[in-house]
């Protein structure tokens, strides 16, 4: 199961960055926000907003897309 990484705890956790788009990492993750509150996602992969436009921050909601 993607959410059972216990036997790989010694491996570094890979994070994928892109010039345009969210930061991708394997879940589950806990994110501590500026105000000290903690939010969690147990999805197999998590997309973290980097453009700061998401209305569901810190999760990506595709608000980084170009508009035309």
């Amino acid at each position: 199961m993607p959410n059972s990484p216990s036997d790989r705890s010694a491996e570094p956790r890979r994070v994928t960055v892109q010039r345009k788009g969210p930061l991708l990492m394997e879940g589950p993750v806990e994110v501590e926000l500026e105000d000290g509150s903690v939010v969690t996602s147990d999805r197999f992969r998590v997309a973290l907003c980097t453009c700061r436009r998401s209305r569901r921050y810190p999760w990506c909601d595709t608000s980084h897309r170009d508009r035309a």
Partner: protein
Amino acid sequence: MEHDRGEPALPAPRGPLSGGVEDYLRGAGRLPRLEDVARAAVYGEDLQLALYLCYELHYRGFAGVSPDHEWDPELLRTRAALEHRFLSALRSDARVHDSVDEALADLLVEPVDGTGVSHFLRDEGELWHLREYAAQRSLYHLKEADPHAWVLPRLWGRAKAGMAAVEFDEWGGGRAERVHARLFADLMTDLGLDTTYGRYLDAASAEALVTVNLMSLFGLHRALRGGLVGHFATVEITSSPGSRRLAEAMRRTGAGRAAEHFYDEHVEADAVHEQVVRHEVIGGLLEAEPHLAPDVAFGIDATGFVEDRFGARLLADWRASRSSLCAPLERETTHIS
């Protein structure tokens, strides 16, 4: 014959093709003649319902119909004739981008002044619009992600791993209460709709049947695996912004918490799925089988084509203050907010 409780009733026929297929399934008549298949309106409700009936035998079947009909050679011959009409029409009618990158690039631009169904529902949708929309979409959402499972044995490496991971998420990540089809049933309950599988097949428009038949067509043919992947990518890429608007529509109309949650979940889930499908599934497939690129582009374009037709029909009916359904909904009786 003993029936599984999960098997829906056969719908009302909508012409000689769907009527002929139903008679055959009941053991009460002959299949339609191939000349009649050749003459019928390809996107019309009769041909599309006949095809839908053939495909549904691979999902849950129908009450009173032997499950052995799934692999009945005579029925498969009729299905092939229906599919030939459908696929030929799509190949000539859908716009085809020159490359997958161009097709994806167009999907990844969000229109500033969008005029689609989700914009309409967000800005002026009333509960009766939302109920009609959910009834029509229930044909897919009550088997959400199922047609795409057929592609798994036909992929390998990165494409298979990515596809399986997204499907696992669609099916609730191992938790029955989070299966997306279950979340949609909860939305239907909020809207006072009957969550029985197949309940709204009679109500669905020809345009709605086309959208589901496209996925079954792509899913059931290994030769069309590129199209299936293109289809899945289109759904995942366009879902997140559209779901945000639909979640707003549900909030504004007070549809209920489960109705909001279905679309809120899709905003977040599909922002992730989109990334996995583009980078891992499409990227992995085309790395392994680069000759499938035109099929992936066709899958994207055919999906856009059938979704646009469905949206145009809904908006034309609603702007004329007409129901978009082919059979009326029952009166809402179960809504408790």
